[in-house]
């Protein structure tokens, strides 16, 4: 199973079940930064309707086997559902539930639509600014590399830096932001 088939399955399930969604992870990073491969397809799903995630999982069941154990992100306590496609692939699907965190809510509300030729359809992605804020908050080495790449490709002068700095102050990640901006090599 190719990754675009898996992503399309999830998007179609969300559309049929009328659950709003946003792709995140490597595909959002690649859209704004430097294209890279990934091991999973990540989606954030709205909890409206309240059983939306369950319905999407149920709709995907013929193609994807989901772990019955829900996982929690230990930083924000967001809930994560992990699915393994039944076809020949090493990929996974990760469905993150949208929750009440103010930044997560705003990020989702500001998401934007883009059309992918490879997917043969449109999908939703976070804005570049929200992707940067989210990655700085997680703060793993790969997240910080992703932030550097988005800044390098987009250019800080094209981004709403006041918005980014505001959230970074709220999250206590302003030092991470400043270090990445300072360390950007001349381009």
């Amino acid at each position, binding site marked *: 199973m*190719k990754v675009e088939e898996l992503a399309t399955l999830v998007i179609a399930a969300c559309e049929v079940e009328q659950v709003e969604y946003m792709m995140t992870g490597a595909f959002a990073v690649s859209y704004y930064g430097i294209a890279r*491969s990934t091991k999973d397809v990540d989606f954030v799903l709205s909890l409206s309707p309240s059983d939306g995630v369950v319905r999407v999982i149920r709709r995907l069941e013929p193609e994807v086997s989901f772990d019955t154990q829900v996982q929690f992100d230990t930083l924000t306590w967001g809930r994560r559902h992990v699915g393994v496609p039944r076809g020949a692939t090493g990929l*996974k699907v990760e469905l993150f539930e949208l929750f009440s965190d103010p930044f997560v809510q705003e990020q989702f509300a500001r998401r934007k639509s883009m059309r*992918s030729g490879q997917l043969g359809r449109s999908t939703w992605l976070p804005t570049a600014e929200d992707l940067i804020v989210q990655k700085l908050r997680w703060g793993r080495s790969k997240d910080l590399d992703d932030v550097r790449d988005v800044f390098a490709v987009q250019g800080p002068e094209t981004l709403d830096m006041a918005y980014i700095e505001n959230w970074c102050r709220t999250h206590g990640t302003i030092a991470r932001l400043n270090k990445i901006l300072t360390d950007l090599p001349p381009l």
Partner: protein
Amino acid sequence: MSAPNPHDDPAALKELQDAIYRDKVLRARAMSNEARFDEALELTNGVFERMAEGVMWQLGLSEPVEIWNEVRRRMDRLARARDHQFYSAVS
């Protein structure tokens, strides 16, 4: 006379790393956002194909089910290392 080895000179090594990174960034900037998104899909498919080929070669497997089970086992090990202390499983 051979060229100096940049690994012997931290400043030269940094300059080389920056030049390589600059090339990656300039290539990315020459593409549209949508083209980079689609390239990520292709890169991901390619990486998994190489992993499957590696398993076939290393373990002498030819059955697709066995090959992909082994790829998944390796990916699970990677995920455990990368996500250590980042996710908590609660039933």
